């Protein structure tokens, strides 16, 4: 997901100011056209002759699970509140109720995450995990660093039909003019769209294991490779796969050295797959019978032959203190100049290596420093048409540099999804909360 940070916020006691609410609320669903729940409980009681069986009809407290028909379109599940509880709500029997917060920390703007570029088509595609959307920009977009307004986008894909939720990795298919996004939390899907997608577009969705992050495509194999953080694997599907289409293969096991994999790049020209690893490993997460405990491994980039499957060892590993890896996240290849770009998230840097680097290799160049405006870089992509790199910060900007820029160099362009100066809480799926009574602060893990 978008960072493993623990953010500490000042106490919110007595603070009435609230950041404007975000744009995505349940009430909005009713206003989006083309989205409807269909299907009845009765339809779920009989198994269709040639279709999938219905999901469990009864869940939890005896409430009916109503499932919409799919027919190639996204499917929805409607789960009602228990009737007895709904009756209590309707009679206002329970004290409290719809209480407005005295304080609210919620960003109303997108926050960039992953990025992919199709230089020939002239577009950059960026995922937004905050508003659960994807923004598409022209590679030639005018975005001078001094401009303070939001940057004009070509398309903004969002809404329930898109199946975008915790949008993470992005990949582009320059042959079919489609882009794919992964869902890093309960979405458990890869969604596919045409380049022309906009608004609440009906995506083509594929079920994948929980915790997908990076994605890369191969025109040679007509496959997609998806990294699954939780299971420490790379899983492969047919391009344009949909529904519950089964995986073709996976790279998984102790010899792979995969541990919390993030970014993925498929280098068709050299028959290699690059994977960035944070180094966190825990088989007990998915295997209740495993009693070996979790482990911390050093961060690395692991390179596999692209026909690998099963418990395959990598053919190269970039790892060691000289690499300067500090949560290496998004990665990209420049096949012309044989370079590997790494979004070194926690160090606010882009590291550049030789494509065939191995071992405890130092980067060829390091791009980072306060003037670069690189701040929590999650994704990086190479634009061959302009010989530039785009860096997606986890927040309100993406920054563009010349390929050979290094050091503390200002960006050539700044893509803004919010007015300049807009703060970002940096939330990426906050699922826990604690109160520090000593400092009057809130602790928010992300």
């Amino acid at each position, binding site marked *: 997901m978008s960072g*493993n940070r*623990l*953010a*500490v*916020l000042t106490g919110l*006691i007595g603070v009435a100011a609230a950041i404007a609410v*975000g744009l995505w609320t349940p009430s909005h669903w009713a206003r989006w056209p083309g989205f409807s729940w269909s299907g009845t409980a009765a339809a779920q009681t009989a198994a269709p002759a040639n279709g*999938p069986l219905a999901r469990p009809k009864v869940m939890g*407290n005896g409430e009916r699970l109503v499932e919409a028909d799919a027919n190639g379109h996204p*499917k929805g*599940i409607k*789960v009602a*509140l*228990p009737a*007895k509880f709904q009756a*209590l*709500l309707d009679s206002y*029997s*329970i004290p*409290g109720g*719809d209480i*407005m*917060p005295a*304080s*609210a*920390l919620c960003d109303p703007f997108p926050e960039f995450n992953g990025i992919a570029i199709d230089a020939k088509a002239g577009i950059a595609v960026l995922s937004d995990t905050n508003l659960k959307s994807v923004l598409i920009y022209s590679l030639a977009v005018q975005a001078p660093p001094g401009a303070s307004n939001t940057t004009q986008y070509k398309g903004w894909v969002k809404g*329930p039909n898109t199946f975008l939720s915790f949008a993470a990795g992005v990949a582009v298919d320059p042959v079919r003019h489609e882009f794919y996004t992964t*869902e890093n*939390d*309960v979405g*458990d899907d890869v969604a596919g769209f045409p380049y022309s997608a906009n608004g609440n577009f009906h995506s083509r*969705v594929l079920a*994948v294991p929980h915790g997908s992050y990076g994605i890369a495509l191969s025109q040679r194999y007509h496959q997609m490779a998806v990294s699954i953080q939780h*299971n420490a694997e790379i899983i492969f599907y047919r391009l344009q796969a949909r529904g*519950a289409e089964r995986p073709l293969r996976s790279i998984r096991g102790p010899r792979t050295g995969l541990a*919390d994999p993030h970014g993925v790049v498929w280098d068709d020209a050299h028959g290699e797959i690059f994977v960035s690893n944070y*180094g*966190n*490993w825990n088989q*007990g*997460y*998915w295997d209740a019978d495993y*009693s070996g*405990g*979790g482990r911390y491994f050093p961060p690395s980039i692991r390179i596999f032959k692209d026909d690998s499957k099963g418990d395959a060892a990598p053919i190269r590993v970039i790892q060691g203190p000289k690499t300067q890896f*500090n*949560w290496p996240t998004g990665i990209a290849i420049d096949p012309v100049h044989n370079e590997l770009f790494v979004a070194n998230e*926690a160090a606010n840097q882009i590291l550049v290596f030789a494509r065939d680097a191995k071992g405890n290799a130092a980067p060829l160049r390091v791009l980072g420093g306060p003037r670069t405006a690189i701040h929590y870089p999650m994704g990086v992509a190479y634009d061959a048409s302009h010989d530039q790199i785009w860096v997606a910060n986890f927040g309100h900007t993406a920054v563009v540099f010349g390929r050979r820029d290094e050091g503390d160099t200002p960006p050539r362009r700044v893509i803004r999804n919010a007015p300049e100066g807009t703060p970002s*809480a*940096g939330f990426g799926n*906050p*699922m*826990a*909360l*604690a*109160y520090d*009574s000593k*400092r009057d602060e809130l602790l*928010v*893990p992300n």
Partner: protein
Amino acid sequence: MAPVRVIEGQRTKLTRVAHGIAYDPLHDVIIGTEPLAGSIVFFRGGSHGNVAPIRVIQGPHTSIHYPFQPAVDVKHNELWVADIVSHGLLVFPLTGNGDIAPLRVIRGNRTQMTGASGVAVDTDHDLVIASGSTHGAPAIFTFDRTASGNVPPKTVISGPSTGIVSGWHVQYYRGRIYAIASNHYLGASYDQGGFEPRPNCDGPLLAFTGPLGFVGVWNETDTGDAPPRAIIMGPASELLHPDGLALDPGHNELFASDSVRNGVFGYLVPDFFGGAAQR
């Protein structure tokens, strides 16, 4: 608003979207549970930046599988951790470190508890409160604090009147249980190991289905199909599917994080704490 401090970086041993965090006020320590590494990490309270934890509990003796909410018991120097995959509550020394076995584990079929996601401790009455499921239905349990092994719960709050479609974290304060009803419908497409789609799966489910979640308050003595005695729920509350929960009774404030809303919300609710400022 930007955070005042951020703890981040490779040295911290933090992992993706930790599902649990707690603060130890006695020792001024931040405690995080890290599912992707099967660990519990401890930081000095004022930590900032890419700092190493002062202690890490991790290893084959720990019984940690997928740790969720931790709970601090400073009175008895114990740390509780709900573990959702092993369906149990693990108890460690609050100052524990390394590959250590838990002091106690509450787990087994007699507990009636599966999928433990939240835990809180009542040291006044020597009880531990847990959120999870019972017979496939979401539930809130209480056990004797010193219980160990395959023991039955003292109380189980579960049923349609609770309004809980799915739970998450819990807190305790002076005889009251504060519980998150995230009401997420989680229909995982793949099996637990991520090897194959589940039988009868024909595609991913749309995320965030399920009714609105809420924060509910129960008396610790409630049992059975008991409705909450107070709730925060509705569109004005900004809550969709809340997850984390923190209490500041001293200021009559309750805080909830909402991973779907991607925000943190604070509520001024003196009546939820008994009326007057609780100092």
